């Protein structure tokens, strides 16, 4: 594996952590978020500032998670007040608010110029890739565990029909906040890893487009399906690289693909796979 492939694989790993986090909030618990990049950014800025202050890497990653998760709980509280489309726009607003604050804080957060020359994690490129891979695997395992736990059932109830869930005495607010806390903490972890990977961060890395890309990874993979999200993330991260030979049309292809998947296969790749399996089974039964 060359340097290029290695860094590409590292980015895929980071994005998987990010997307699995959003899938917890949007896929499992049904709370749509258009501001996921803000928590990614909070994690990245937290880790970057601490790293520049000379703190050790693992501590910084933990701090990035804690910080993003804490802000996530606060933002999650809005989901107790507003629902569905109102929540989508509120979380979008949180994303713009984050950017607006970071851009104007020149002395502390570097303003438009961002933070540069962040120290390395100190384990080399290969070592860092292994670290990302392990953390991504842990996030996926954690996510699968949640899905099968009691909490996962409660999330599903909230996503399905909030009012009915309340009637059968599911503590809806607590589970919503839990989903936001866990999902945004994962985004914070991804952000912390990203700042060590890029070693240079600017506000635009965490803008609305990033939030949308993450949501696209989840939706293209199949909202709620952990394996689907992994495949969707890998595909959408790598596709722009495959299309480098038509680099000028890269974003056009991306937009068209996003539109096409939603238009023709709204359940994403996971939905397509299920459909294919059912067809095969039906054929097998008929013979």
């Amino acid at each position, binding site marked *: 594996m060359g340097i290029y492939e290695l860094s590409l694989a590292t980015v895929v790993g980071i994005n998987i952590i990010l997307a699995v986090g959003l899938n917890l909030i949007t896929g499992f618990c049904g709370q749509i978020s258009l501001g996921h990049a803000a928590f990614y950014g909070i994690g990245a800025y937290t880790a970057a500032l601490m790293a520049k202050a000379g703190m050790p890497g693992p501590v910084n990653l933990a701090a990035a998670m804690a910080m993003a998760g804490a802000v996530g709980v606060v933002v999650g509280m809005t989901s107790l007040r507003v629902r569905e*489309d*109102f929540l989508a*726009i509120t979380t979008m607003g949180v994303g713009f*608010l984050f950017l*607006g604050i970071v851009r104007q804080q020149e002395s502390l957060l570097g303003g438009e110029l961002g933070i540069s020359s962040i120290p390395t994690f100190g384990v080399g490129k290969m070592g860092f890739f292994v670290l990302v891979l392990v953390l991504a695997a842990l996030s996926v395992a954690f996510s699968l565990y949640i899905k099968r736990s009691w909490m996962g059932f409660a999330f599903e109830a909230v996503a399905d029909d909030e009012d009915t869930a309340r009637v059968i005495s599911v503590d809806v607010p607590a589970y919503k906040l839990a989903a936001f806390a866990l999902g945004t903490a994962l985004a914070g972890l991804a952000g912390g890893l990203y700042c060590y990977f890029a070693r240079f961060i600017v506000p635009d890395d965490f803008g609305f487009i990033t939030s949308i890309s993450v949501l696209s990874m989840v939706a293209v993979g199949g909202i709620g399906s952990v394996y689907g999200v992994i495949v969707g993330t890998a595909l959408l991260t790598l596709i722009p690289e495959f299309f480098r030979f038509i680099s000028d*049309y890269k974003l056009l292809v991306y937009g*068209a*693909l996003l539109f096409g998947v*939603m*238009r023709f296969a709204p359940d994403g790749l996971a939905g397509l796979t299920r459909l294919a399996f059912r067809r095969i089974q039906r054929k097998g039964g008929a013979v």
Partner: protein
Amino acid sequence: MSPVFRAACERLTMLYFELLIQGLIYGSMYAIIAVGLTLVYGLLRILHVAHAGLFALGGYMGLLITNSTGSLILGMPLAAAIVGVVGMAIYRLCYQPILDQPPYVALIASIGLFIAMEEMFRLIFGPFGLTYTNAPLQSVVQFAGIYLRAVDLAIVVGSLSLLGALSWLSQKTRIGLAWRATVDDPQIAESFGISVLNVRYLNFFIGSALAAVAGVFISLLSNLVEPTMGGVPSYKALAIIVLGGLGNVAGTLIASLVLGVVEAFGTIYIGDILDRDAIAFAFLIIVLMIRPEGLFARR
């Protein structure tokens, strides 16, 4: 009162007045973008992000036609008509097939469409934007003691009269009656012989045409159209329709004007902490926390 103090007071009043006027100019422009969006939402429950692509398309069409014919009188209505038809096509080809899917499906499809549209503008018209060869409405007029450009007045007057016409259409005509009936309950409207499909086409035509007019206005304001011009207005228009109570046209109008004024004052007083867009969204979040259904809940 000392003369110095009085002079200071007058200057401050003048500043407030200018900020208010600035706010109303931006606010009325937001209003004609947001009304189209709120009409679509009221009818279909779709957050139509690609509306901003139509806004940009309107800017391009208006500028190209005006530059080639030398007449804005021709350019603006033609741009509105072309974009209106494109809007209808978007409904037919993009939204109609996915109406029964969960709301995020249409939202993401719309975002994909918007990205693709922005890229097409960049590829076809170039990344740096276009300007008017001979920009119309740039003469300066004095109004109530402050200096305005003709385009500023045209925006306020044009937007308000278009919205007035829209309200007349929806309140006083048979078309408007069919429209309101469909928003209320599409099934019952259909059983009374209203063509729901035609109402939706009309809705997309009018909404998109209004977005195109807004696009032409903003291109006159800055004498520039560029591929990314739809971005910020689109997010802000989404915020506005939520503030106005999603699907509520009158609420959307008031929310647009209020947001325009809040932004104008905000950039002066808290511009060091937050930029213009963040002020808009901070305002949105505060309002939603106090009134979760927006400033004006829907009926």
